[in-house]
């Protein structure tokens, strides 16, 4: 009670200090929620690759490339020990300038013979409208669009969409998956091969046959075989092949996400620390104003510990109030932004209970720490001198 009354003595000053903390915690909550969302997307992304499949591409290296590979290499891979199913595929950017336009997942055209994974793909794709591709679609210009792509181009089942200069009929639209397929146009393998060929320089094209070209293979190991073993085997077979296991993907995506999250949370933390400094200032001022009062309390028997406790509790309360208000405002922003983005499938934030509690606990502790130095100063005052202080 007394603490609250002390806070209301200088309403403007206390209010501004609380505002400082509020802004800091608000930033921490909003950026923290964004970081949560990124982490979440990464873990969903690795679930997409979690079928145990090894991605294989031509040209080696540790990052997937879109180099042409002869489709017959798939047969060599299928003959390796521990390999169950090999799915040749073609993937290419939907347009030459599209890369880097969206965060993380560029729009792609992907082509595989439907069903060639023999049921090994663990990620279930469902059609929100229309149907999925079947093996019977080979040879015709049909496509199933990911949810984001369909929304961007405002396409529905039955519409036509131009992909790399060819008209495709939209036969289905996928439910959102929150990862790569959302931004993909799935087409039959033959169509993808043709589109891919059209992107290649003529010198390269001259040596290739469309029906024999692929950009990579998805290799499913037999149950019980470790993907890393298969990957090593593949690289040993042909030094020109690059591989990525689910573990590689998680590490790679995780390290990018960690870096981005560190930046986001760092911005939030800096804001809170600046708010914390204003608490130090406020408490130092309010102790200077209350010098006489502290003198009385010391004279009539308040111990030093007691004075420190009073001051620290008061500044912790400032931190806590600022933290709660910041959390409420941050949660409001996150909710409104997510609601606004829901229709378009762009969900940017995820506010977890952990983030919320951490934010308030952090601001309270910060407030307490900020009050500590002024509190020590107050406790060391000579009661007689403090009593005479004007």
């Amino acid at each position: 009670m007394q603490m609250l009354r002390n806070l209301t003595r200088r309403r403007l000053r206390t209010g501004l200090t609380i505002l400082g903390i509020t802004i800091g915690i608000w930033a921490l909550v909003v950026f923290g929620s964004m970081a949560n969302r990124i982490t979440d997307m990464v873990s969903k992304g690795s679930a997409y690759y979690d079928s145990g499949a090894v991605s294989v591409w031509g040209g080696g290296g540790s990052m997937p490339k879109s180099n042409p590979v002869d489709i017959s290499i798939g047969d060599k891979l299928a003959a390796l020990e521990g390999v169950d199913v090999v799915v040749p595929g073609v993937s290419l950017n939907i347009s030459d300038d599209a890369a880097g336009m969206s965060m993380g997942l560029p729009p792609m055209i992907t082509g595989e013979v439907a069903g060639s994974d023999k049921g090994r793909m663990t990620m279930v794709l469902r059609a929100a409208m229309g149907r999925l591709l079947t093996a019977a679609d080979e040879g015709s210009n049909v496509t199933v669009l990911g949810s984001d792509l369909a929304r961007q181009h405002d396409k529905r089942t039955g519409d036509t969409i131009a992909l790399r200069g060819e008209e495709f009929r939209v036969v289905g639209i996928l439910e959102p998956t929150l990862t790569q397929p959302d931004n993909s146009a799935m087409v039959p393998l033959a169509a993808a091969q043709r589109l891919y060929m059209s992107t290649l320089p003529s010198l390269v094209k001259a040596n290739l046959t469309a029906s024999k070209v692929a950009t990579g293979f998805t290799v499913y190991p037999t149950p019980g075989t470790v993907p890393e073993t298969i990957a090593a085997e593949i690289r040993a077979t042909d030094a020109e092949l690059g591989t990525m296991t689910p573990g590689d993907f998680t590490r790679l995506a995780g390290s990018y996400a960690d870096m981005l999250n560190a930046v986001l949370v760092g911005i939030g933390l800096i804001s809170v620390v600046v708010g914390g400094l204003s608490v130090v200032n406020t408490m130092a001022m309010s102790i200077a104003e209350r010098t006489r009062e502290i003198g009385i309390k010391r004279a009539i028997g308040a111990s030093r510990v007691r004075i420190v406790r009073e001051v620290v509790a008061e500044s912790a309360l400032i931190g806590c109030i600022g933290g709660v208000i910041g959390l409420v405002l941050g949660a409001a922003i996150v909710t409104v932004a997510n609601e606004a983005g829901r229709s378009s499938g762009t969900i940017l934030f995820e506010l977890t209970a952990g983030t919320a509690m951490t934010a308030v606990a952090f601001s309270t502790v910060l407030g307490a720490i900020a009050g500590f130095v002024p509190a020590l100063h107050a406790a060391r005052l000579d009661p007689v001198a403090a009593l005479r202080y004007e």
Partner: protein
Amino acid sequence: MNAVETPLPPRPLLEGRNLRKTYRLSRSNTLQALRGVEVRIETGEMVAIMGPSGSGKSTLMHILGLLHAPDLDSGRGLSCHGPHPELTFAGRDMVALGESERTRIRAREMGFVFQDFNLVSTLTALENVMLACDYAGTGGAKARAAALEALSLVGLFERAGHRPAELSGGEQQRVAIARALVNRPSLVLADEPTGNLDSARSEEILALLRRLNIEHGQTFVLVTHDPEVGEACDRVIRMRDGQVR
């Protein structure tokens, strides 16, 4: 407490010898506020310490009230060499005590009244009095009851819920007296308790202190330069230039 049948001469509540206090005003300038004082205050006495400004009477009260410690030995530089100071309160040595122990004794066994009333402005009269209970380790309903009783004693039961700003100077000083008395201390120290009051209020406060002194047998030490206060007391300790005369 005392197994001896024959009445002893009253044991002094407070006894000090060779009390010196030097304040360092600046690097090269020191002030000898006390220059070897000897005092003896009996249990149940009401004593006035009087003297002109700068005579050391407040310094003496701060030392008796454990707010400051006496100089331990000769000190440095200007101060004269002298024997070790002695200060006993209720038979216990106070010179060697540390700050936290002195604070404890101030909270539990002493009461303080200051010239400027010195109440905490954000707290009501009742809460101001309860603060002293809190520091002495009494809380809850017991503290509330004790505080209300102390306020009745000074005639302010009705005003318990008022803030200091809503009380007159005399009323504020009575709240301060209630705060000083609430833990039933054996010693009450008052620094110019009537200094900021008109003569009618002064007499009222003085009569109140005297009544409490007689009814509760508490020892009062008043620092004052008001001769009327001196006359109302059992005895006057006169000070001049840091010494008792």
